[in-house]
C-alpha cells in the first residue's frame, strides 16, 4: 500500500542549488508531498470545524434541557396548590391571561391615540394604510439604527393583528404568472441578514412574493425591528407576503431567549403593552404555507399524525403558547361558570401534562436520556395524582379516568373523560399536539416517529413518515427551518425535506452561512447563500474556523469551570489514592458523566488541557488554569459562583414570569409566594418567619419591592459584608417592627431545618446547636441556609435526589438575625 515518504537524504542528493534543471520526477514528488500535507491539514481543519459545531449544538441543547427543567418547575407551580391556598392567586396570576374577551376592550387597552410623539422625534411617522414608500423608509430608518416610536409600533401592530385575524391557518400561494417565490428561514432578530436578503433579492412586492418561515425573534439584538419590517411589508402587500409561525413566536420562550428583554429595554414606557399585543399577534400567525398545492412550508416539521385537514380547522389563536394548554372556551352553562376557575385549573393540570413530559425512549440522541427529565416527570406526575385525588373528594367531578392522567406520558395525548369537557379536552389535546409537532419537530435519519425529548416538544420524524405524509397530501417537498445548518440549507430524506436557515453567523462570527431559496413554477429550488458581517469577508476558511473554534472552546471552558465541584468529585472518585493525577481516558469519561454533552473529549483534549505528564493530567492544576481565564470574584465562594453562572438565565426567567406586568419589580407578596413554592418543590421545609426575613432582607435598597438584581442576590451565597449588611438591616427593622420572640425561634428552626443528607443542595452550616451559643446577643441564631466554608468534595449528590438536581443547587440565604 503506502509508498512511504522519501527520506531527506534523497532529496538533498538531487537538489541542485546552482539552478541546474531538476528532473521532472522530483517535481512530481514535491507536488505529491504538498498535496498530501495539504489534504491532511484540510482534514484536520474539517475535524475542528465539526467538533466546534458539535460544541455549539450541544450547548444549545443543554440550554434547552435547562429550559425544560424550568418548565417542569413552573408546571409544578401550576399543579400544586390547594383551593384554599393563597398561592393559587399568584399562580393564576402568573399563568392566566387577562381573559378580556371582547375585542373592544382589547382595542382600548392597546390604544395608541393618546401617545404623543415629540417634535424632536426624527424617525418615521407612519400613516395608515401603509404604502411601499413608508415600508422602504422604515427599512432605511432601521438600517440607520433609528427606533420606531411606540405610538407607531402599537398602531402597526394593531393593524397587523386585524389583518392576521382574517387569514386562514394554511396560507395558499401560487406561482402562476411566472412568479418566483422567495422563501426565508429563521432570522432570530438578525436585522443585518434581513437587509442582506432584501439587498440581494429585492424587497417584497407584487412581482416578488416572499414566505417567511418563523423564528423572527429571540437571540439576535434587533428582533423587534425585524418583526416590524415583516409586518409592514405584510400590510403593504397582504397578497404577496406570507408569514408562518415559529416556535419562538411564543411569549414564554421569549422570556428566556431575549425578546422580552429587548422590547422592555427599548420601549421602557410602553413595552408591556407591546408585548401583550404581540402575544395575541403570535397566536394569530398562520401555521403553514402551501405552494401550488405541492410544496409545504412549515417551521418545525411533521409527525406521523400530522393532518392538514385538521390543521385547517383548528382555532389557532387559542394556542397562545406551545407550553401552555389551550385557552378554554367560554363556558356555555351558567352553573358551570361559578366553578369555572376551579374547572379551568383542573383543565390546565390535565392538559399541561402532555406538553413537556415524554417517556424515556430510545432515540437518536441517546445521551440526553441520562438527563433526569424522566425523573422530573414522574415526580410531578405523582404529586399531580395526589393533588387531584384531594380535589376529587372536594370537587365531586367524576375522575374515573384520572388514573390514566399520568400515563399521558405517551406521544399521543389521551383523552380525559371529564363530563363537561370530554369532547373539548379530546379535540383540543389532539389539536395542541398537531400544532406542537408543526412548530417543534426535527427530521431524523431512522424510520419512525419518536417524541423529541431534546426540545421537549414535537417529534423526530423519519423518511418513511415523510414519504407517507407527502403521498397522503399529494405534496412533493417539505421546506422547514428550526435547525441551524452550516451552509444555510440542507436536504435530507432523499431530497424530500429541505432545511432552510437564514440567520448567518448564528453561533459566532463565521460559524455558518445563511440561505434563502427561490421557487419558480417548475418548483425547482434555487439557493442563494450569504454571510452577513463585513469582518468575515476578509477571513479565509481556516481563519474563520479558528475564530469559531476559539469561541466554542471558551464557552466550553466556562461550562467546565461552573461544574468544577461535580468534576472534582468525579475525579476524586477515580483517583482513590489521591495522587492528584488522572489519565486522559478517565478524564474524558468523568467529564462526560458530569456534563452529558456527548462531545468527543479525546479529540478536544489538546485544546482544553495545556500539559500532561506521562499521559496523566494534574487536575488540580487544570482547574486553576481554567479559573485563571475567568473574571475573579473574590467575594463569591466557588460553588456559588458556579451556581450563579449556571442558573442565571433560569433565575432571570423566573423573575420575569413572576413579574407579570413586566414592570421590572415584583411585590414582596409575590416573592414570598415564589419562595414558598420553590422550597416546597425542592422539598425544603422553611418556616414562614424565615421566609419573611428572607423577603425583607432581599430588598436591599428598601424601596418596598424587589427588582431583578435583588432577586438574583437572594439566590447567591452572600459574602461576609453583605451578611453584615443584612444583619444590620434586620436589626433596624427589628427595632421598628415587632418580630417573633427570640427564644421561640431556635426550637422551630431545629425541627424544620432539613439535615444535609435529605437535601444535599441545601448546604446547612454547623448544626443549629452551635449557633444558639451565639444567641447570647439580642439576635437569634438561625443557621444560614448556605454554607460559606463548605469543604470541597462534600458537595456529593445522591442520584436519587437528581430530580431536583439543577434547580436544587440554588441555596437560599438566610442571614442570622
Amino acid at each position: 500500500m503506502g509508498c512511504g515518504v522519501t527520506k531527506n537524504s534523497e532529496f538533498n542528493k538531487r537538489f541542485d542549488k546552482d539552478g541546474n534543471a531538476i528532473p521532472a520526477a522530483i517535481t512530481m514528488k514535491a507536488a505529491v508531498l504538498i498535496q498530501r500535507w495539504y489534504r491532511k491539514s484540510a482534514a484536520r481543519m474539517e475535524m475542528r470545524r465539526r467538533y466546534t459545531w458539535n460544541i455549539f449544538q450541544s450547548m444549545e441543547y443543554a440550554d434547552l434541557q435547562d429550559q425544560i427543567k424550568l418548565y417542569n418547575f413552573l408546571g409544578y407551580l401550576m399543579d400544586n396548590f390547594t383551593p384554599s391556598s393563597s398561592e393559587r392567586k399568584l399562580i393564576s396570576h402568573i399563568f392566566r391571561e387577562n381573559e378580556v374577551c371582547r375585542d373592544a376592550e382589547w382595542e382600548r387597552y392597546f390604544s395608541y391615540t393618546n401617545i404623543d410623539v415629540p417634535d424632536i422625534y426624527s424617525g418615521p411617522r407612519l400613516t395608515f394604510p401603509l404604502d411601499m414608500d413608508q415600508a422602504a423608509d422604515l427599512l432605511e430608518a432601521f438600517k440607520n439604527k433609528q427606533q420606531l416610536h411606540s405610538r407607531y409600533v402599537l398602531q402597526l401592530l394593531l393593524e397587523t393583528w386585524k389583518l392576521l385575524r382574517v387569514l386562514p391557518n394554511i396560507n395558499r400561494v401560487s406561482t402562476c404568472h411566472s412568479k418566483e417565490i422567495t422563501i426565508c428561514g429563521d432570522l432570530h432578530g438578525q436585522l443585518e441578514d434581513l437587509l442582506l436578503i432584501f439587498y440581494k433579492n429585492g424587497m417584497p412586492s407584487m412581482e416578488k412574493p416572499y414566505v417567511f418561515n418563523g423564528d423572527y425573534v429571540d437571540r439576535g439584538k434587533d428582533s423587534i425591528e425585524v418583526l416590524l419590517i415583516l409586518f409592514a411589508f405584510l400590510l403593504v402587500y397582504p397578497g404577496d407576503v406570507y408569514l408562518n409561525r415559529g416556535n419562538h413566536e411564543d411569549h414564554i420562550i421569549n422570556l428566556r431567549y431575549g425578546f422580552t428583554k429587548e422590547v422592555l429595554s427599548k420601549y421602557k414606557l410602553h413595552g408591556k403593552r407591546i408585548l401583550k399585543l404581540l402575544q395575541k399577534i403570535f397566536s394569530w400567525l398562520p401555521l403553514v404555507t402551501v405552494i401550488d398545492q405541492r410544496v409545504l412550508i412549515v417551521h418545525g416539521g411533521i409527525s406521523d399524525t400530522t393532518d392538514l385537514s385538521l390543521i385547517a380547522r383548528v382555532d389557532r389563536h387559542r394556542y397562545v403558547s406551545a407550553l401552555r394548554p389551550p385557552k378554554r372556551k367560554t363556558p356555555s352553562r351558567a352553573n358551570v361558570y361559578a366553578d369555572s376557575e376551579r374547572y379551568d385549573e383542573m383543565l390546565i393540570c390535565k392538559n399541561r401534562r402532555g406538553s413537556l413530559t415524554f417517556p424515556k425512549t430510545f432515540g437518536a440522541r441517546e445521551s440526553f436520556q441520562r438527563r433526569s427529565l424522566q425523573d422530573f416527570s414522574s415526580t410531578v406526575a405523582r404529586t399531580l395524582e395526589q393533588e387531584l385525588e384531594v380535589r376529587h373528594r372536594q370537587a365531586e367531578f367524576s375522575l374515573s379516568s384520572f388514573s390514566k392522567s399520568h400515563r399521558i406520558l405517551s406521544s399521543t395525548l389521551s383523552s380525559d373523560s371529564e363530563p363537561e369537557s370530554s369532547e373539548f379536552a379530546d379535540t383540543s389535546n389532539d389539536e395542541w399536539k398537531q400544532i406542537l409537532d408543526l412548530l417543534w419537530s426535527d427530521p431524523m435519519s431512522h424510520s419512525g416517529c419518536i417524541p423529541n425529548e431534546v426540545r421537549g416538544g414535537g417529534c423526530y420524524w423519519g423518511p418513511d413518515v415523510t414519504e407517507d405524509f407527502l403521498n397522503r397530501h399529494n405534496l412533493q417537498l417539505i421546506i422547514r427551518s428550526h435547525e441551524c445548518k452550516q451552509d444555510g440549507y440542507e436536504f435530507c430524506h432523499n431530497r424530500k425535506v429541505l432545511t432552510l436557515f437564514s440567520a448567518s453567523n448564528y453561533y459566532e462570527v463565521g460559524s455558518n452561512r445563511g440561505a434563502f431559496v427561490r421557487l419558480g413554477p417548475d418548483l425547482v429550488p434555487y439557493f442563494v447563500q450569504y454571510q452577513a458581517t463585513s469582518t468575515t469577508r476578509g477571513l479565509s476558511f481556516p481563519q474563520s474556523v479558528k475564530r469559531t473554534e476559539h469561541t466554542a472552546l471558551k464557552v466550553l471552558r466556562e461550562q467546565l469551570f461552573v461544574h468544577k465541584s461535580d468534576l472534582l468529585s468525579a475525579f476524586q472518585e477515580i483517583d482513590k489514592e489521591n495522587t492528584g493525577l488522572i489519565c486522559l481516558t478517565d478524564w474524558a469519561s468523568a467529564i462526560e458523566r458530569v456534563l452529558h454533552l456527548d462531545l468527543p473529549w479525546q479529540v478536544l483534549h489538546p485544546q482544553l488541557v495545556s500539559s500532561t505528564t506521562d499521559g496523566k493530567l494534574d487536575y488540580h492544576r487544570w482547574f486553576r488554569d481554567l479559573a485563571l481565564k475567568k473574571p475573579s470574584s473574590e467575594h463569591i465562594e466557588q460553588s456559588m459562583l458556579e451556581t450563579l453562572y449556571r442558573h442565571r438565565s433560569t433565575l432571570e426567567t423566573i423573575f420575569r414570569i413572576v413579574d407579570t406586568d413586566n414592570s421590572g419589580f415584583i411585590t414582596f407578596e409575590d416573592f414570598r409566594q415564589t419562595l414558598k413554592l420553590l422550597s416546597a418543590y425542592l422539598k425544603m421545609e422553611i418556616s414562614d418567619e424565615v421566609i419573611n426575613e428572607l423577603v425583607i432582607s432581599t430588598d436591599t435598597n428598601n424601596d418596598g419591592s424587589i427588582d431583578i438584581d435583588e432577586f438574583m442576590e437572594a439566590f447567591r451565597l452572600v459574602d461576609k459584608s453583605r451578611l453584615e449588611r443584612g444583619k444590620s438591616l434586620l436589626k433596624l427593622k427589628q427595632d421598628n417592627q415587632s418580630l417573633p420572640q427570640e427564644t421561640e425561634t431556635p426550637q422551630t428552626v431545629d425541627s424544620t431545618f432539613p439535615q444535609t443528607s435529605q437535601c444535599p443542595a441545601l448546604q446547612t452550616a454547623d448544626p443549629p446547636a452551635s449557633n444558639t451559643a451565639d444567641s447570647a446577643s439580642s439576635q437569634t441564631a438561625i443557621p444560614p441556609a448556605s454554607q460559606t466554608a463548605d469543604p470541597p468534595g462534600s458537595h456529593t449528590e445522591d442520584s436519587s435526589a437528581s430530580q431536583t438536581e439543577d434547580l436544587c443547587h440554588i441555596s437560599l440565604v438566610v442571614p442570622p438575625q
Partner: protein
Amino acid sequence: MFVKFIEIHNFLLSENIITETQKRISNAFDVFDHESNKTVDVREIGTIIRSLGCFPSEADLHDIIAELEEEEPTGFVRYEKFLPTMTKILLERKFRPITEDLLLQAFEVLDQQKKGHLEPEELTKYLTQEGEPFTQEEMDEMLSAAVDPDKNVILYRDFVSMMTFDDTR
C-alpha cells in the same frame, strides 16, 4: 521466565497503547457520526484518517475504502469495520508525518527561480497537474488561505509555518 515476563510486559504495554489508540479512533469517528448510530458517510473516511495523523495517498485511500465498504456498498461505513482497519494503520504507523523542513524543500523545488515565493498560477499548475492532482475546489481553498492578499503571491515559508503551527497533534 524472564523473557516471558518481558513478553507479558510488552503485551500489557501494547494493550494500553491499543486502548488509547482506539479511543482516539472512536472519538474521531464520533465527530462525523451525525446520526449517532456508529456509521459515517464513506466520503468522510479520508478526512477522518487524515485527521488522525495519517497521510494515505489517494490510491491508498481507495484501497482502504474498498476494504471498509460492505459487500453491497451502502454509502456508509460502520464503526465495527473501521476500528480494526484504522487501528492497524495507526499501530503500524504506515504513513509517517511530513516534517516542516521536508515541506519547505518541496516548495523550494517548485520555486525554480528561487524567488522565495510562488505565483498562484505556478502553484495551481503543479498541484492540479502533477502527482495526485487537486480538484478545482481543493485548489481554490488552498489559494484562499495561501495567497498573500496584498502581494498576490504565495509566501510559502509563512504559509507553512502558519498551517503547521495551528496543527495540534
